[in-house]
């Protein structure tokens, strides 16, 4: 087990006052809140902050933590000394952070270090293994998870097997990681940010309450060719200067997997979008596919190529910088 330096996590001195700890936590929490910060690592950092703060804001826990001494370094191998917490008393509300029932915060997934010192299962050695962050909250009845699919799946629909990891607590307070495999039909026409509701696939209900629902928030894997904005899809189309000037016909791939022949009108300029109506993500009102031309200039390397550019120069009285008046 690795030691966690909670003071370092919050960037405060070991002598920091309660107010300083709170201010440091608040500032970092705003910065790394996963709803605010879109970096992939933000969620883990936010959880680390929450864990550090939950110990340092609590006088008893902080005193117990401090008793381990100031010589431990972040990430150092660590075993809690026997009876290290003798004489300290604190309530075990780590899992809910004092907000039972409702409380839609990002919580859970404390480190093994925290778990062994302050967790409900601290009498157990070891802990649950790495818990892959699936965006899974486990309190309450409705569960949430994020899944990434390919753009083509939104065009054609797909069947996907997803794996969810859920820490669950049994009646005696033991924590176990439940792995669930779900075979889900991804309906055609789903868009990034939309939620797919799987009725009855959430947490088990209490009494006659019935099971909660599982909400899967959809995201697309990054695509090397297409960019997606809502139900509209963008494709960059490189064109040779003569193709753009004289017009041509090109074959373009569609996200659905087919090929379309597209007429490029003479005099096409870079950035002048062409809209293929209804070729975006399908739905009742299908999105559009935008083709964004960009003119690519070949370098002049051979004598013949240089001559071709010189011929161009003679043919045009082209002054591209008249607006600079220099």
């Amino acid at each position, binding site marked *: 087990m690795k030691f966690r330096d909670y003071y370092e996590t919050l960037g405060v001195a070991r002598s920091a006052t309660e107010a300083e700890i709170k201010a440091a936590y*608040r500032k970092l929490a705003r910065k790394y809140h996963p709803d605010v910060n879109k970096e992939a690592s933000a969620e883990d950092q936010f959880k680390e902050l929450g864990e550090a703060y939950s110990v340092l804001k609590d006088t008893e826990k902080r005193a117990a933590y401090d008793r381990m001494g100031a010589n431990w370094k972040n990430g150092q191998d660590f075993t809690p000394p026997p009876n290290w917490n003798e004489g300290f008393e604190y309530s075990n509300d780590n899992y809910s952070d004092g907000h039972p029932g409702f409380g839609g915060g990002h919580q859970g997934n404390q480190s093994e270090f925290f778990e062994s010192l302050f967790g409900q299962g601290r009498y157990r050695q070891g802990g649950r*293994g790495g818990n892959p962050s699936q965006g899974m909250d486990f309190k309450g009845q409705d569960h949430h998870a994020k899944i990434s699919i390919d753009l083509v799946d939104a065009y054609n629909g797909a069947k996907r097997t997803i794996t969810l990891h859920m820490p669950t607590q049994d009646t005696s307070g033991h924590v*176990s990681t439940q792995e669930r495999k779900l075979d889900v039909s991804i309906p055609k026409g789903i868009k990034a940010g939309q939620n797919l509701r*799987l009725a009855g696939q959430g947490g088990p209900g209490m009494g006659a309450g019935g099971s909660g629902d599982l*909400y899967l928030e959809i995201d697309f894997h990054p695509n090397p060719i297409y*960019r997606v*904005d809502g139900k509209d899809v963008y494709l960059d189309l490189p064109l040779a200067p003569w193709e753009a000037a004289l017009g041509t016909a090109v074959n373009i791939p569609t996200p659905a997997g087919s090929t379309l022949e597209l007429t490029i009108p003479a005099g096409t300029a870079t950035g002048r979008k062409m809209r293929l109506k209804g070729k975006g993500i399908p739905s009742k009102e299908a999105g559009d596919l935008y083709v964004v031309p960009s003119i690519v200039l070949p370098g002049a390397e051979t004598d013949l190529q240089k001559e071709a550019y010189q011929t161009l120069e003679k043919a045009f009285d082209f002054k591209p910088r008249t607006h600079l008046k220099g």
Partner: protein
Amino acid sequence: MTKMTRTQITWIEGSIVEDDIHMSILEISKAARAPAELIMSWVSEGVLSPAGSSPEDWRFSNDSLRRAKTAAHLTHDLELNTPGVALALDLLDEIARLRNQLLRENIT
């Protein structure tokens, strides 16, 4: 000890929120894990804009679900009050809009 258990389930059909279903105040309250009173305060602050005239008739969109989830997280994690949540959500939407604009223009 850590137990690993596995449950195998056969193909599940889901419903797309908004396309297929519109959520009531009870459903969105449960899904966003926020009490109905908080949902109502977000509606009166303009954070959520359901269709329908009274709370019983309210129907929330997927965008409302997304916003309600974020609002619940911010309220809980950063102890923001309702006007603070409203401001944060508006700013986050503005950032998302600008990011999408960069994406459309292919500026990264």
